[in-house]
């Protein structure tokens, strides 16, 4: 018998959303609202507050779990966790199969609806996030997860199981909750999804990059979870030619690529933060020559056909028609990045 059929009655009716966003916000500003915070005395999930580590529950083995969760086991068996545990466990805990992650199950087997008796990784089960994450960290600590504690995601109360679901094989890699890294990240980062569809963007929609090419969602030494020591160190991984150093450097370029480029997407060519030439003119206003000039619509190639005067600072690649080596030049004449 499916466990669903045992439990579904308790959830009859499902849940309805609050009437409107405003109402939700109003309610949310009232911590501890009796109607919204789970009542530990009545809410089915409340008892999960019990410290799971102090139970006297014991391991009962995979077959016992399968008594009720056979189909779940079949799905989980397609993922890496059970394959590893089954074939070559490296710790005593891993030999416990399902219970390696969910904790010892004897008490749960006796009282399967008591949510305090086993660790669950879903919202409904209600195991505290700290308990869930700590359980994952019994294996997944150090290495790439070394900086998880106090990272942006940790501070935001993100659970490992917000992104990962070892029970289903949704993704080729990473036991993700969605089919790809990017789709998983988009579940919260909708703004970035929109930006990746802009006119110029990194090739995420085309499947050639994912968010984790640049970010370590498990934490890093940088605030935006970058995989490099700095923005530039990261960008040089793919744009190694721009690493140089060069004999002629461009100060904002050397310091931070994102001074000029929006990393996720832009309405401008080359992921630029503003259209050229005005992007360049946000810093350049020299007293001599053209940097401070007002460039305008009389200077396009189209306007030149009707009486205007073309300007190489407006047309095509704009400033980079001449200052081509804007990322730095190694040419002895290249101080203005023209060679």
């Amino acid at each position: 018998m499916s466990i669903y059929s045992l439990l579904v009655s308790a959830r009859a009716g499902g849940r309805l959303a609050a009437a409107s966003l405003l109402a939700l916000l109003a309610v949310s500003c009232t911590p501890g609202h009796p109607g919204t915070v789970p009542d530990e005395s009545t809410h089915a999930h409340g008892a999960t507050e019990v410290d799971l580590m102090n139970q006297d529950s014991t391991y009962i083995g995979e077959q016992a779990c399968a008594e009720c969760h056979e189909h779940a086991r079949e799905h989980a068996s397609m993922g890496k966790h059970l394959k590893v545990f089954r074939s070559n466990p490296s710790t005593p805990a891993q030999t416990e199969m399902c219970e390696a992650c969910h904790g010892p199950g004897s008490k749960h087997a006796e009282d399967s609806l008591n949510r305090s008796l086993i660790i669950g990784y879903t919202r409904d089960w209600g195991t505290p996030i700290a308990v869930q994450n700590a359980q994952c960290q019994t294996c997944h600590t150090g290495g790439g997860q070394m900086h998880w504690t106090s990272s942006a995601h940790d501070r935001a109360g993100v659970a490992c199981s917000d992104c990962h679901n070892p029970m289903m094989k949704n993704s080729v890699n990473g036991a993700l909750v969605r089919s790809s890294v990017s789709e998983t990240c988009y579940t919260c980062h909708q703004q970035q999804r929109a930006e990746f569809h802009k006119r110029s963007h990194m090739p995420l929609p085309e499947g050639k990059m994912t968010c984790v090419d640049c970010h370590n969602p498990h934490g890093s030494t940088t605030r935006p979870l970058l995989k490099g020591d700095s923005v530039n160190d990261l960008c040089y991984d793919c744009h190694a030619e721009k690493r140089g150093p060069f004999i002629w450097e461009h100060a904002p370029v050397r310091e931070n690529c994102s001074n000029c480029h929006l990393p996720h997407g832009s309405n401008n060519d080359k992921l630029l933060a503003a259209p050229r030439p005005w992007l360049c003119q946000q810093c350049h206003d020299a007293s001599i020559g053209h940097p401070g000039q007002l460039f305008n619509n009389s200077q396009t190639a189209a306007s030149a056909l009707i009486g205007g005067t073309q300007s190489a600072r407006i047309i095509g690649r704009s400033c980079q028609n001449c200052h081509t080596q804007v990322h730095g030049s190694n040419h002895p004449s290249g101080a203005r990045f023209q060679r």
Partner: protein
Amino acid sequence: MKPWRKTLVLCVTAAAAQMIAAQVRADSAAGVGENLGNALNPGGLRTIPERDPDSLDAWPDERTPTGKLLGWPDKLPETSRTQDGWEYHGQVEIGGMATGGNTDSAWFRRYKDLPTSGLYLNNFSVQAEQLEKGKGYFLEALGGGIGYRDQYEGVSFGRYNDWKVDLFYNETPHVFTNRYRSLWSGVGSSHLRLNGLPPGGVGIRNADGTMNATASQTATVAGMRSAIEAVEDSELSLVRETGGVSIDKYLSSKWRLIASYSREHRDGSRPFGAVFGGGGGGGSLEIPESIDYDTHDILAMLRYDDGTNSFNLQTNVSLFRNNIDTLTFENPIYASTNTISATAPNVLDPTIFTSGRYDLYPDNDFYNVKAEYARSMPEWYHSRLTATVSLSRMKQNDDLIPPTAHALSGLEINGVSAENNWNTTSALSRRRAGAEIDTRLFDVAFSMRPTDKLGLDTKIRYYETDNKTDYVACNPLTGQLGRLLNDGSGGAFAFPNTAAGNNPAGTLGSAYDAMGCNLNAVRALGLVPSSGASNIRNVPYEYSKTNIELGGEYRLARGQTISGRIEREQYEREHRERDSTWEDMLRIGYLNRAYQWGTLRASAEFGRRRGDSYNPDPYESFYSVSLGPEPTADGTNLFSWIHAMRSFRKFDLSDRDRLALDLRLDLIARHDLDIGFSGQYRQNRFPNSDFGRKDDQRVGTASLDVNWQPSAKLGLYGYYSYQRSTMTQSSIQPNGCVIGNYYYFYSDGAVASGSDPVAPARSGASLVDTVLVTSGNWHNQCGDHAQTSPLWTESRKWTLDYEDTNHALGIGGRYDLGFARLELDYSYVTGTSTLDYSYNANGLGLSSAVTELAGSGMPDSDYDQHILSLDLVFPISKSVALRAIYRYEQGSIDDWHYAGVSDNPVPTDSGSQAVYLDSGTQDYHDNSVGLLVQVNF
């Protein structure tokens, strides 16, 4: 085929043939991952699978802790088992695909490569394992787009919890334009040769043997226009081909060794530019840059973890190699030269500048060693300490190239013969670049949980760059300080000012040269330089950044926390307008996941950046202005001594007040329906910037997500995002500041100058003021903007308002019809960029005709793109299905940068020519259809 590639191909082929194997996973902490996928398989594998109606035996609409539906899992694959215990399954999808429409469109093909017609192996995957206890061997493979420029393949094999080897190969196309009209052959090589056009342009002489510039330019332009008319559009693109191997070995239950090597080869070309002459340019043209790069990345990591202590030691080497060190291109334009002149009785014939030469990106090496340590101390308030040290060095020591390849026979620069003085590396102060920047990172973080409800953490981070590059722009052969520009067609040199009164009578223009590139000796001469704006040495920019954070969170109730954080970020910079800037930040956050109906996350962050005094010109020692005293003679234009307006602020250094608001609401609307709402608002206020980026820069985004998963048969989703951003900047179009000149300011904003103290009358305007620039007052008169500043006249100010508006919409879903499975995805994105400017036409001296054309802004730049993807899978048997694919894409774009370029690629008839060969992105629509056979085994 190169040996390494052959090896990879063999590995992949063998794996596929044996129906076993592959995936490659990027480590989440180090290096750039290679995501194996393409547009049709963005997650690596997209097969339109059947969903499992039995779900997981638990509730079918389970959610993540935040409240997102986990959805319906794919139906379990049928696996086969060999006699020796290997279980395997896999699939392959192959058939015919065709694409019609604007199949050459660069926009359509930017990062993907769909077949125009033909056989197409869309994807394959194989997974095999021996899972008996004590074994754990596995072999996996996947791939897609085989043979196309976005193909990917990966093989992974090893033993779980013991060792693993990954091999991968991945191609990423990048199409820049398909509307490039090339005048050269040899695109992609180190030498671009003109097809038919005369290098150097057409030279026409007058009867006396001097050059007739106008006739020469007119003839040259006519020839180029004809040539451009005659050539077809072509594509400039490159492909990244990346292959690699990694080995992951558990040395024990605590120690782990990871090593990887990857090589990326980039091959192709992209739009580039070249200019002749100097200063504002004596002719520009778009040339194609040839790309032939190799990047080798080697990574080795040793990891230790015993549950209490964790330690990572990592070393990374990245070697970039440019197989095209220099790019020589034949020049079709008749250049307008400056600085260089003919030694009598010779004549300067600009057609000698038959070619230009670029020193392309040099080879460079990067080395990094990183050590990380973490210790958990659960017995001491559940505390944890993390420390990181990372030391890097990036360097390049490329052979420098001579300033020009031309002999410059019969020519001179400021009276010094240029002949054979600039076409060898003897003309350089050093033969090799010797450029190096070291970086150092030290990071210590500590967190603790003194009570069950309270968490505290602190962090100190220090990062610095140390630039050791040193280059002096001086020619030891002639002693001339400065640079020969653009292959000799121009120059920017420092020599003594020969205007009477600035230097002692009889001062020779070559006086600096005699000091043999000794800057101190030159300075000791005490001679006023000819100009203050010539670069005489490189600027070794470097900085350090220190972050100190203190934060904490407090649990209000079950599922509810508030958090707070303060941080100071301090920069110390060398050779920038500010030595020091600091930003103080405060962040507060609120999380409530206790609602039955969802999760709320909200945060606000405030930042206040300030700094020490702003020096608008910190670069004096790197320019000729540092070579001698300030000029005093009448007639000297001081604009090259005043490099920047005192009130101008560069946005990366200016005072800034920052506000960031984030709100995310994940609603559980029904047991099978999620609704997500998020909003982000960013505001950067530049309170002390009158010029440069100023006022408020804002970005606001609102998004709505809907995900409905009622059954294994049906699932629908939708999203919509709206984003609007605004930015304002101002500047002043500089005028002039000549000692001894009178500047007349009129009521309509016009400004004029002359030597007469009495201002000329101006029709329709009255005189407001007259200012005389003297050697004693120019710092005050010309240093900053004012109504009566000769250089930065307020009436010559222009202000620009920039606004971006974007909408992104996506809808789609899946439905199992029984006889077929349907998946549909549709996305629509549109963006509009509005750019308005305001100015005083009188102040800028614009004619009415120009003013009319200039208007009050540029035409809107806008684009929209629709992508519709429809898949139908018809199961034929347990192991065979037919998949029909239909994909429609349509894009339209208007970008004023390219307005009229196609019809008017050489807009000027004479004078300095400008040649535009890339007509920009075009509208497109394409239909792709495919009929593929899916075979599962």
